[in-house]
């Protein structure tokens, strides 16, 4: 069986370009993604690192694909995902996060998120399972209303819950 992958999908009432910016531009990410931002703007083939507002490290890895959405082709942003926000999770092998951003018509954009490569990373698998639901929900709320979801939990809380 394949307990190595999570797959999510959400529809957002925004353009593919706006959603793409929300995923790749720190001005957006810090507003819905646990305050995290890219230290340097992400570039295809380059290493990246994200940090929280207080400077603590969050994630690092490599940007494997970075193809913005065009009229007829979906946007693809693929990053290896090595967690830095928790000591135990940091020890597990990195996974891979793949974003696909696609025009779904009627003013909607379909976002599909695949977090794979977690076969040897049980703690991470459990930790990010519900975390991504909150992130996607928060991104949707921010893009559609201008405000992110109120902060109800942070990384530590989620990690503790996964361990208990």
């Amino acid at each position, binding site marked *: 069986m*394949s307990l190595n*992958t999570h797959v999510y*999908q959400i*529809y957002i009432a925004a353009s593919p370009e706006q959603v793409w910016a929300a995923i790749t531009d720190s001005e957006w990410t810090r507003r819905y993604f646990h305050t995290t931002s890219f230290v340097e703007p992400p570039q295809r083939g380059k290493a990246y690192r994200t940090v929280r507002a207080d400077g603590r490290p969050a994630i690092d890895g490599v940007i494997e694909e970075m193809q913005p959405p065009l009229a007829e082709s979906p946007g693809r942003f693929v990053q290896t995902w090595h967690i830095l926000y928790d000591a135990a999770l940091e020890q597990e092998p990195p996974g891979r996060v793949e974003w696909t951003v696609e025009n779904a018509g009627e003013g909607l954009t*379909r976002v599909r998120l695949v977090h794979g490569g977690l076969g040897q990373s049980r703690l991470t698998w459990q930790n990010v399972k*519900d975390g991504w*639901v909150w992130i996607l*929900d928060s991104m949707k709320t921010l893009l559609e209303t201008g405000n992110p979801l109120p902060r109800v939990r942070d990384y530590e809380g989620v990690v503790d819950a996964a361990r208990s």
Partner: protein
Amino acid sequence: MPSVEQGTEVFRALADPTRRALLDRLFSHDGQTLNELCQNFPEMTRFGVMKHLSVLAEADLVLTARQGRTKRHYLNPVPIEQVANRWISKYAARFTSALVALDDQVIAGSETEESRRPESA
């Protein structure tokens, strides 16, 4: 199917016990193939399982992804979260789960009380 109508699709999909059972199977073991899912429902035809899966897919509750030649099915919890959020605000979510926990404790407590009663009587 998304946006305003999504709630309707989700409720329709969840109304059927077999479809809820399929979601339960994916919740405990995400990423199953059609064959693996069918093994859990020996009383149902392969076609029957496929039909239920397609209703779940229309509601966005089940997503498929190909791994080489294998097509795997994944539970997408996002629509359920959105349906829940429509009536339960994010502020209330914690409070609500605390109440549910309290309720469970009270029920557990009263069951213990009842089991003691015959001895004391």
